């Protein structure tokens, strides 16, 4: 078990290093930063001055080492646009996105778990059809369109929820629903598939042979065995949500990482774009790591491997 965790941690660190390298390379490949920072029509002297100030005149490997060293100490650079440290900006925006993502994933799980399980009890029964229909609609509906429908109904017609901004928890409800709707189909399918497989297995027959009540058979015996793939997919979906929240945050004017990324892209604020990508990716890595650790707790076979 120790070696498993150690190996898993090692892999995570390697992935993080790869991501950071990639984000550095991509930024460098995107063009001459000094020129775009100086703005069109600036003199060559000014460009050269910027290049020197930011150290972009040094060999690329030196720049990389320097950048990585700063990164390790938590220095993500300075925003071109705001002039303040990128880390501060990110730290201010990250909680909004995390809150949104957490709301959304728990909402998605809260709907997908019962729905997928009920669907699995009678494959091709009417509950199954309903669940698969919802999953299909969820998959086919563009997230921005669904957001507008929500705004129209909940925000304007019924006027029960605020349309934009992030002042109160109520502001998070609609964006969370929109994101949850987007994350739900995959989870429904996984829960349903896992549940069907579990219910058909021999140990469920054993549980029934012991005279256990149906709820005990399903909750204690079947559900536990569907958790492993669900945890795995939920962590991936949560990562998607952090990335996918760009659209939703923009629509609902929630000032999270997604909104920040969108702003930064339109303002050519490269350090912020780079840091946002880096932070979201890092979360991804951490989430899958947590999912693996959680699955070790759920399934002893993984634990003893």
């Amino acid at each position: 078990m120790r070696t498993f965790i150690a190996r898993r941690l090692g892999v995570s660190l390697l992935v993080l290093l790869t991501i950071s390298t990639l984000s550095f390379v991509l930024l460098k490949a995107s063009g001459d930063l000094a020129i775009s920072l100086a703005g069109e029509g600036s003199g060559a002297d000014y460009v050269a001055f910027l290049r020197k100030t930011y150290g972009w005149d040094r060999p690329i490997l030196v720049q990389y080492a320097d950048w990585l060293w700063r990164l390790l100490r938590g220095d993500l650079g300075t925003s071109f646009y705001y002039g303040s440290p990128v880390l501060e900006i990110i730290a201010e925006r990250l909680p909004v996105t995390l809150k949104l993502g957490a709301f959304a994933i728990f909402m998605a799980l809260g709907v997908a778990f019962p729905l997928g399980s009920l669907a699995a009890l009678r494959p091709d029964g009417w509950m199954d059809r309903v669940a698969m229909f919802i999953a299909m609609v969820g998959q086919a509906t563009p997230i921005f369109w669904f957001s507008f429908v929500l705004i129209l109904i909940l925000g304007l017609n019924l006027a029960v929820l605020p349309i934009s901004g992030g002042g109160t928890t109520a502001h998070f409800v609609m964006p969370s629903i929109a994101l949850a709707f987007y994350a739900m189909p995959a989870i429904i399918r996984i829960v349903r598939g896992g549940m069907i497989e579990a219910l058909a297995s021999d140990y469920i027959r054993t549980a029934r042979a012991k005279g256990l009540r149906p709820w005990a058979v399903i909750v204690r015996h079947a559900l536990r065995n569907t958790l492993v793939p669900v945890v795995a997919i939920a962590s991936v979906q949560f990562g998607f949500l952090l990335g996918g929240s760009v659209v939703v945050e923009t629509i609902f004017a929630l000032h999270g990482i997604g909104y920040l990324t969108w702003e930064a892209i339109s303002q050519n604020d490269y350090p912020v774009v780079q840091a946002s990508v880096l932070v979201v990716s890092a979360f991804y890595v951490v989430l899958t790591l947590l999912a693996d650790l959680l699955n070790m707790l759920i399934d002893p076979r993984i634990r003893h491997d």
Partner: protein
Amino acid sequence: MAILEIENLDVRIPVGAGVLHAVRNISLQVEAGQTLCIVGESGCGKSMSLLAIMGLLPRTAQRQASALRFQGTELSCLNARQMEDIRGRGIGMIFQDPLTAFNPTMSIGSQLEEVHMRHMGAGRTVAREKAISLLRQVGITSPESRLAQYPHELSGGLRQRVMIAMALMCDPVLLLADEPTTALDVTIQAQVLRLLKGLQQKLSIAIVFVTHDLGVVAAVADRIAVMYAGEVVETGSVRDVFRAPQHPYTQALFGCVPDIANVTAGRLGTIPGRVPSLVTPIQGCAFRERCAKAMEACAMAAVSLKPHADGVFSRCLLSAEGINTDEELTHA
């Protein structure tokens, strides 16, 4: 008293092409304190018969019986909840494959304890003591430490013994054991069989014991039922059937064991030819195509179970006509 009475049990399972008639019109009876052994080739419907009693057939399977009585109660009249109260409590079942029959994500201990807690209402501590004592009785050393282990950490033999203990957690009146000793070595098997015998005498348990091992039959059975292609082709007291098997199928099964009357160990014989498909209707005797003694009449009509001497029943035209006497057999 008859603990289990089965009359004309039929099990049909819809499969892609048609309907698989897995169990055909079988009738069995087991008294308190008695052991009935069911033997027969793979696929002849032994497991399906046991599952039919438990009400645990595959979802699509259809069960029909003119009687299916446990301690005088007609099981097909019970609702789901009443059946749940009997399963695990009055009837314990040992499943054929102890690797897949355990929940891989739950410890041995909780899987044992939950049956007891479900039916006996005595809490976890009592359930745990019962589990430890049963594990010790099936020959597992340091049972306390086993409780925390998971199924994949145990060897096949250990799993099978835990399975046996699990079926005995609530002191059942009837035990349905589907090849419970196949994964055990000879000494452990003997120990487990002694345990079952002992418990049977003490609590007067009725046991239905599916096995391929004639040595096991000789060691535990009072009565035997030989199944072929979903039918019972011969049944009677184990002494009489061993001494003078009536049905050609039984004779062929016993064929490879040199001295059937003193058998201590030995697998059932293998017989050339193939079992007929259970999906297409069988004309006449199901065994006729592999039978050395088949006659024209065997293809004409289905053969019914006919009484023979000593309460042995056999589904063969020859046995009814009294041709298969002991003398004839020794020449055969």
